[in-house]
């Protein structure tokens, strides 16, 4: 812990020393050479929104293609993106490219940059009373590596990748489709995109762990840290330990593709299932990496607008630790149909079900926090309530899928698609919007419209449920994921899901309208605009906070409830 020793730091007693804290560098330096956690957080948020437009646009193309059986628009899009005219194979390949790009963009370039890069960068240092991150330059390279990874992924769409342009491997990049099945450089560009973004995330993880362990203000013990900081700490450990295994796995893909190694090639004794093990050893912690910061955001919001500390604070913190630890030993529940032995399936079923326990602790503690609280239904609170409901729906279908015997039937069906979109696009993304409206005036100093935020929630809630709830029915009835065409019997619910997408798209228009409202109206936000109940350190600062906050470290009172 840093203790302040003012005598060792001669303070410049010049006239404008107040201005120092708010002195901002010139435009280019500020945004391309930044070493400021708040500016880098803003960069991440802008990047995430930009990537979400592309990733969400891709899901629009997919949804409209799927609204009726047969191939509608794919041939046109394939030609538009540079494939030979009328080539049916390249149209079908484009479908694979779309699902791949949608998955990779949403996971690596939307949710992770927004949650960890954006909100955590902005608020972890502030919440623990630190002036910045431990490694400000490394913070910046984390962002730019993520950005360059995105560039590499975008370039891959315009490279030959087999029967058409682009990497069409699925976000899991399974061999042998990703090795012998995808000649041409597109998949190599995709693999390097993951290398670049992964390196950025590992450095980000090192930065967050070091910051949280070493830069807490005097009196801010681990057990007083706000739950959002706890969630980021656990997330950072998952990133640190899971991503290097992915790096090894995709490096094996790279050498299998280009240098005649046979890691995943049966002709040389290799094993495609090994890739799946390595991938999901990373992939399962990865899904917790996406949701844990959301848990943290929701805890802050529920507590603030119930005007109560979170119920069972320590239980909430250690529930996240438990989810993180157990998350490393359940990976093969993604692989029930590869030919695992019954014993392996029994183990992974049981271990997976165990995760429902700490997750249940969290859900019930949020409800218990609200119980008897003095509730205020502000826009972030409404998004948070929506999160609790939607995430629980995704959670219970997760318990269904955890059963190896049931998953034999549901594997790779739309039931799985419904499940993970309920926890991610309806869980993690809802948490992102909750955090966005909770902190928007804090980050940018001006108010969004509470009315538009609530309107967006109402439309979004209807839209996403219409998109994804019918997918449960489709999956139960045997519709497989990752195909552009389907049995006409599935037409009704696909039509409904596409209408749901349109409604959801309107809610995104309201989101942008809200940003425009904030820019145009410029209604100034006070320091603690949520008033009583908002107790974490960001509410002790102005909105937006000074360019360098806490030039004198805050001291946390023994009795004050930091959480």
């Amino acid at each position, binding site marked *: *812990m*840093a203790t*302040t020793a*003012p005598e060792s730091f001669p303070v*410049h007693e010049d006239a404008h*020393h107040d201005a120092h804290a708010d002195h901002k*560098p010139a435009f280019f330096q500020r945004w391309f*050479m*930044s*070493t400021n956690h708040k500016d880098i957080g803003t960069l991440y948020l802008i990047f995430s929104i930009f990537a979400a437009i592309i990733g969400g646009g891709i899901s629009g193309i997919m949804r409209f293609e799927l609204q009726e059986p047969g191939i509608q628009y794919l041939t046109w899009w394939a030609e538009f993106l540079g494939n030979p005219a009328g080539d049916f194979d390249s149209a079908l390949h484009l479908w694979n490219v779309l699902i791949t790009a949608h998955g990779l963009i949403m996971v690596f370039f939307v949710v992770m940059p927004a949650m960890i890069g954006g909100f955590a960068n902005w608020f972890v240092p502030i919440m623990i009373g*630190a*002036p*910045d991150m431990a490694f*400000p*330059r490394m913070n910046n390279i984390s*962002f*730019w*590596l993520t950005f*360059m990874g995105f560039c*590499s992924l975008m370039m891959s769409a315009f490279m030959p990748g087999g029967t058409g342009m682009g990497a069409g491997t699925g976000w899991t990049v399974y061999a042998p489709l990703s090795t012998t099945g995808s000649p041409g*450089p597109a998949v*190599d*560009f995709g693999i*390097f995109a993951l*290398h*670049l973004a992964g390196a950025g995330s590992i450095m980000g*993880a*090192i*930065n967050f*762990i*070091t910051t949280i*362990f070493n*830069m807490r203000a005097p009196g801010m013990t681990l057990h007083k840290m706000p739950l959002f900081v706890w969630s980021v700490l656990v997330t950072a450990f998952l990133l*640190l*330990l899971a*991503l*290097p*295994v992915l*790096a*090894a*796995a995709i490096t*094996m893909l790279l*050498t*299998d*593709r280009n*240098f*005649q*190694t*046979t*890691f995943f090639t*049966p*002709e*040389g*004794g290799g*094993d495609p299932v090994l890739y799946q*093990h*390595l991938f999901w050893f990373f992939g399962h912690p990865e899904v917790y990496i996406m949701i844990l910061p959301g848990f943290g955001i929701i805890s802050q919001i529920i507590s603030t607008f119930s005007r109560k500390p979170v119920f069972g604070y320590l239980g909430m913190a250690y529930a996240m630790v438990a989810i993180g630890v157990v998350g490393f030993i359940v990976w093969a529940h993604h692989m029930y149909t590869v030919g695992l032995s019954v014993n392996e399936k029994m183990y992974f079923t049981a271990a997976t079900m165990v995760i429902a326990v700490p997750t249940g602790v969290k859900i019930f503690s949020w409800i218990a926090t609200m119980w008897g609280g003095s509730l205020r239904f502000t826009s972030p609170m409404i998004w948070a309530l929506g999160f609790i409901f939607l995430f629980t729906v995704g959670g219970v279908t997760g318990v269904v899928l955890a059963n190896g015997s049931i998953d034999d039937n549901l594997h790779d069906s739309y039931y799985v698609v419904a499940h993970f979109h309920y926890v991610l696009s309806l869980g993690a993304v809802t948490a992102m919007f909750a955090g966005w409206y909770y902190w928007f005036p804090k980050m940018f100093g001006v108010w969004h419209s509470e009315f538009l935020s609530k309107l967006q929630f109402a439309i979004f809630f209807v839209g996403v449920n219409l998109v994804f709830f019918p997918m449960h029915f489709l999956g139960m009835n045997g519709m497989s994921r990752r195909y552009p065409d389907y049995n006409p019997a599935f037409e009704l619910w696909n039509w409904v899901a596409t209408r749901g997408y349109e409604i959801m798209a309107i809610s995104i228009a309201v989101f942008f309208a809200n940003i425009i409202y904030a820019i145009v109206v410029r209604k100034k936000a006070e320091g603690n605009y949520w008033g009583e109940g908002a107790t974490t350190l960001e509410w002790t600062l102005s909105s937006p906070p000074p360019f*360098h906050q806490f030039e*004198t*470290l805050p001291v946390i009172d023994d009795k004050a409830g930091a959480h």
Partner: protein
Amino acid sequence: MAGTKNHDYHILPTDPWPFITSFSALVSTTGLALSFHDYPFGTYLAIAGFIGLIISMFSWFGNIIKEARAGDHTPVVQLHQRYGMILFIASEVMFFVGWFWAFFDFALFPSELTEVVGGVWPPEDIHAVMDPFDLPLLNTLILLCSGTTVTWAHHSLIHGDRQGLKQGLWLTVILGVLFSFIQAYEYMHAPFPFGQNTYGSVFYMATGFHGFHVIVGTIMLIVCLVRAYKGDFTPRQHFGFEAAAWYWHFVDVVWLFLFVAVYVWGGWGATIH
């Protein structure tokens, strides 16, 4: 900017190198991906990217050394660096876990399906393996020995013996370079090719990545040696040296696992070259 700051943390001015480094990384991966598929200029692009990366690292790390000399590395900042290095090494450990996972999968459950492997390890197609108690054992001793010489250098540094520091570092660097040369010699005379079956794949990739880490560690130690001659490092503050030493021990431990698992156990009972 640090005019009014009232704490021991290191608040940095804006810096161009993160962006330049990232861009160089993108140029080199783009060049590599293109060169894999024989596109024109792919190799040149990759080389340009690597040059950019080397310049970036040289400047960035050089700046850190300058900041250390300027006294920016207060005790708490040094603690950050320690955490950072330990966490970086932890992530490196997990990277090698991936390679060992592949190795043990292939060795414990050799493929039954093909005559290439035939359900045995080393695979049937591998007619001879390296004698683990020949050059690999020598390399093990060299690395273990270098672990002691770097500790010698460290103790000399702590006790203010600059001569011992330099001697210990020289020996460590020489042993590190020797290891790399012996490894290269071993690769050139290996009785099995790179790739083509699981043995050749996992052997060369696992030991190759280890060798790459040895080279990186050697470069770190060479930088420490140069800095020792320039008069850097004090008995109380020498984290650059410690980071290099930690990394060197990490590389050493990985080798011990490779030696025991891949060379000795993984080649047990096979014909020796």
